[in-house]
């Protein structure tokens, strides 16, 4: 099987700094990691490879040259190939432009299944995976929490807020993965040593030849008006082993705040 995993490198912190002028993320000085949901996507791909010997897992990432380390980590986990889609003209792309670019790269490749993470922790949009599927005209299942393979059909569990769906989908298809799907394996020491012997291919727009009207900041329809840090929730009050008196106090307190 040919398996593709789309990954994003994201800042490893909840304290993301944002450039007030462009309203885009400032990446310098913040340690980077593979986006957590994408780790589940990699694990799903590697599990499928383990179950289908001879399969090949290719990582695809769009980002600046520093994203190289995220791809090396994926290789160290056991992925076979890595492609970094990188070009200054892609800079500032929103999810629409990003999906156009990644889909243009995937068109060049063979695949039976494409795994993406549900959403990235820096933007939380959950749009790129589904949009890639639309660009490629592929069936897609999002929020995947379980996968069973039967020939070229996958039976997947799609988690929703108040329940789940069981969906059968024929390959080729695209799945977006959530953390309930699996526990990502750790890169191995031998894998780390090998990862830096391998070549990470760099694909620029010279290769992809995407029209300027589909890529970059200027062609991105998303306009961010304002960004802000949501105020932290105040911690609740715990009343362990409350007796009648304590409960009366809690009741009074709730009543005074008009919750009751």
């Amino acid at each position, binding site marked *: 099987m040919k398996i593709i995993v789309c990954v994003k490198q994201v800042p490893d912190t909840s304290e993301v700094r944002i450039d007030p002028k462009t309203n885009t993320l400032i990446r310098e000085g913040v340690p980077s990691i593979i986006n957590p949901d994408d780790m589940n996507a990699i694990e799903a791909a590697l599990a499928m490879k383990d179950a289908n010997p001879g399969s090949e897992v290719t990582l695809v990432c769009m980002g600046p040259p520093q994203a190289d380390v995220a791809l090396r*980590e994926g290789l160290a986990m056991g992925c076979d190939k890595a492609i970094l889609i990188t070009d200054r003209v892609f800079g500032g792309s929103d999810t629409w432009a990003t999906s156009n670019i990644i889909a243009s790269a995937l068109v060049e490749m063979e695949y039976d299944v494409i795994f993406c993470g549900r959403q990235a922790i820096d933007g939380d949009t959950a749009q790129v995976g589904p949009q890639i599927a639309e660009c490629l005209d592929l069936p897609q299942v999002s929020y995947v929490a379980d996968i069973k393979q039967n020939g070229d059909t996958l039976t997947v569990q799609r988690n929703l807020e108040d329940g789940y769906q069981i969906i059968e989908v024929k390959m080729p298809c695209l799945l977006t993965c959530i953390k309930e799907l699996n526990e990502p394996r750790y*890169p*191995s*020491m*031998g894998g780390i*040593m090998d990862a830096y012997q391998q070549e990470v291919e760099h694909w620029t727009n010279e290769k992809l030849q995407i029209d300027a009207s589909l890529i970059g900041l200027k062609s991105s329809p998303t306009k961010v008006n304002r960004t802000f840090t949501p105020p932290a929730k105040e911690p609740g009050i715990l009343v362990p082993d409350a007796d009648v008196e304590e409960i009366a106090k809690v009741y009074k307190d709730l009543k005074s705040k008009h919750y009751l």
Partner: protein
Amino acid sequence: MDYKLTQEQEMVRKVMRKFALEKVEPIAAEIDEQEIFPEENVKLLSEMGVMGMIYPKEYGGSGTDSISYAIAIEELSKVCGTTGCIVASHNSLACGPIYFFGTKEQKDKYLPDLVTGRKLGGFGLTEPNAGTDSAAQETTAVLVDDEYYLLNGSKMFITNGGVAETYVIFAMTDKSQGNRGISAFIVEKGWEGFSQGPHEKKMGIRGSSTCELIFENVKVPKENLLGREGQGFKIAMSTLDSGRIGIAAQALGIAQGALDKAIEYSKTRVQFGRPISTKQGLQWMMADMHVRTEAARQLVYRAAYAKDHQKRFTEEAAMAKLYASETAMWVTTKAVQIHGGYGFTRDYPVERMMRDAKITEIYEGTSEVQRMVLAVRS
């Protein structure tokens, strides 16, 4: 001189740190308190190729350099001295002598299981009456009918003793020769006459399995002699040179872990209306802890570097082990001091770290032995 870690070494640190925080730290207090061998984590470490990381891929190892190895042990030991000890002793003491002194047949037979962590290994040199003075070995091996050695005696304080399946055991084959009469053997668990004593109740690294090994007329096939007869002392000393890098890295990790906890605590503990981290007396204490820990790190990496570049590293390893272990003891003691009364309780990890630090000044050569090694070489 390049002071930068390679990309591989940086990634080893990143991965091991993540593993340590996610899997090792959450159970560190429990395995210490209950004296539980962390079997699940050792299995995961085996899958990650950590248990035989410095050995080549042809035997199932990971083929890493020694600095990466030191970093891996350092990161584990930052949160759990027990786990660092298990990895260090298996890599250096169990796999090492077989890899460096074994015949092709011995390597093919034993290394694949050991370096992949499918089986754990132990190293038996110390005896009830033979610690630093290894020539006082009372364990004997007598060649019978040119077919097998008859092994008799006992070994004390053997790390991984209760969980290992393959052991490198030292015994006298010619008492009159002193150190030159010691030979090394590969011994398997389950052989008739080979039994294990009860687990030692220890001050620190309490999750590791330490016990006595007892040999009563154990028949060791002749082909399990490691190296030549009389080469045992050389094998032991050479193995301990490598082993000391691992223990030094363990000590370094314990020191760094205690320093991190002390800094974190000092920022949250408020006395006289301000965090105690604002007190100059404690700032200076933590600055000194930081300097010594970093100095230890440089000695540890230098010893590993020397080993990677096929230089003699006896002196470097002894220095690293001596300085890092005494630093670990000093830093953890200060870390407890900074925590005050809380540091003396098991509610805070520095209490465990201080107990774990102590063994690094003792095993694989006490601090006094390291000084002896350095004195005769300078």
